[in-house]
């Protein structure tokens, strides 16, 4: 961005960039020869009267919602306040986070592997991945969780040995999978099936020319995926993954069937006791809102990171926008200048 040089008084004007960013620029003084008739006019942004009306409407609606939230006593905000930081709620929150984080890691780790398997040349790997996705996207999570947790019901004893032959090592099934283990297994394994599709979709979106270029350079296959394809696919993988992670955070609530102490379960126990259903669900909602917010912010920066290269010029960050706005607020005169010859 050109800056005014000292000693050369130049008019400063502002253009709004594509994304609404003010750009300060300096124009040379117009020479008599070509000075156009509109040199010297102020540049003002486009008018959108409809937008103002709509904004007012939205603001009004928002005010109504907020007022009804605050004024309607059925929300019982005092109860919400009491339970928001209730020890067992916090404990449940921790349970949720721990579960969601572990399941995310397992899900996306295994999911990426499955996606690459489905896109591989080997019919075997393809079919295994396909079969996995087919089964794990179909089986209700609750069935899976119950099965993992109650494996002992079906198979009281696990044995390692020759298939269909004698077993060598025998383990009591009950000792293998505990509550957290069953929950993580169930969530992680089914998440992997969904994540695999997300990763695969991202890879499909990458231009064929990129695969060809990588192949023509003789880059080994895993490295092609890792270094060339996946980073470009991330642009579409990130938003949908955050979707999935948010879904997973909330999805942990199905582990109530295992009586695992996550947020929703805790809240359920409390309202089961005191019948304050709505305020306690609000407590859960508020915590989910906090988690979603954190994830959304992370998503914003991740998306930005992976947009490098896909966009000619990156849009400014919110921080940059605010700074730019503050900077230009000082200049009251923004005058249009057709330039002369340099």
């Amino acid at each position, binding site marked *: 961005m*050109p800056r005014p040089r000292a000693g050369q008084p130049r008019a400063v004007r502002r253009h709004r960039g594509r994304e609404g960013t003010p750009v300060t620029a300096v124009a040379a003084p117009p020479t008599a020869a070509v000075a156009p008739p509109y040199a010297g*006019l102020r540049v003002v942004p*486009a008018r959108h009267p409809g937008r103002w009306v709509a904004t007012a409407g939205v603001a009004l609606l928002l005010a109504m919602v907020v007022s009804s939230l605050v004024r309607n006593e059925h929300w019982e905000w005092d109860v919400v306040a009491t339970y928001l930081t209730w020890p067992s709620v916090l404990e449940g929150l921790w349970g949720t986070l721990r579960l969601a984080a572990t399941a995310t890691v397992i899900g996306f780790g295994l999911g990426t592997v499955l996606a690459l398997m489905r896109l591989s040349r080997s019919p075997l790997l393809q079919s295994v991945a396909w079969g996995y996705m087919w089964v794990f996207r179909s089986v209700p999570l609750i069935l899976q969780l119950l099965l993992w947790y109650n494996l002992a019901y079906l198979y009281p004893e696990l044995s390692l040995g020759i298939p269909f032959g004698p077993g060598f090592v025998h383990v009591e099934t009950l000792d293998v999978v505990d509550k957290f283990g069953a929950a993580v297994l169930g969530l992680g394994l089914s998440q992997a099936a969904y994540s695999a599709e997300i990763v695969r979709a991202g890879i499909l979106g990458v231009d*064929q020319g990129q695969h060809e270029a990588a192949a023509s350079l003789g880059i080994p296959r895993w490295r092609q995926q890792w270094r060339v394809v996946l980073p470009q696919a991330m642009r579409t993988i990130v938003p949908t993954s955050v979707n999935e992670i948010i879904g997973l955070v909330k999805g942990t609530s199905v582990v109530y069937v295992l009586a695992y102490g996550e947020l929703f379960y805790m809240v359920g126990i409390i309202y089961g006791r005191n019948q304050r259903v709505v305020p306690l669900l609000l407590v859960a909602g508020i915590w989910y809102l906090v988690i979603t917010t954190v994830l959304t912010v992370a998503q914003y920066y991740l998306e930005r990171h992976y947009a490098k290269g896909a966009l000619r*010029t990156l849009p400014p960050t919110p921080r940059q926008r605010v700074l730019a706005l503050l900077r230009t607020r000082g200049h009251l005169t923004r005058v*249009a200048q057709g*330039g002369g010859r340099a």
Partner: protein
Amino acid sequence: MSGGHLRLHGLRKSYGTLEVLHEVDLEVRPGEVTVILGPSGSGKSTLLRLVNHLEKVDAGFVELDGELVGYERRTTRRGEVLRELKEKDVLRQRTRIGFVFQSFNLFPHLTVLENVVEAPVSAQGRRRADVEPEARELLTRVGLADKADARPRQLSGGQQQRVAIARALAMRPSVLLFDEPTSALDPELVGEVLDVIRDLAHGGTTLVVVTHEIGFAREVADTVVFMDAGRVVEQGPPDQVLSHPRHERTQAFLAKVL
């Protein structure tokens, strides 16, 4: 489709700290052919993108037939101002300016014919039934009649470039901006495509062509503009600029031509 009158005033454009265009002024009169020459990276493509308002200028203005591209003059209570146009109006202005990208940017999911027909129908509101025969005719002129139903990725480089040209022509714009329209063409086709372009010029369309074909410049151009490092170094009739360049930089450039 009579030619538009294009005037650029003091255009400036920077990317970060890199100033790509410094104060470019240019006038292209209706029906004239202006050829822009210049080394790689001198800002030729950027200049065309600014004319089309695909990129916002940092300073300066583009005027088409006396109308500012991207702004309008308005008298408000606080005196006369320049108001930025809404996107809708900018899009309307663009239908009068055709643009052939250096990288073609064809729509890969549409067939060749659909690529050509899309804009006249959806941007200019013409009837598909009217546009289609015209589009086929254009494709025939660039030698692609048999590829009407292929998709861009099934075409060779030269074929893609010709589709891009046909797509821009189908809009019947009053100003046409070509960014290296013959780079992927063989000498035979260069001849044919230049014929099409020449026809356009005679039809009155205003042409701005970025090219490295000095021969073409010599033959077709009314004005040759030589750019270097974001500045217009020299401009004038081809005879003068190409055969008797006054500026050192132009001389050096032309000396290298094979």
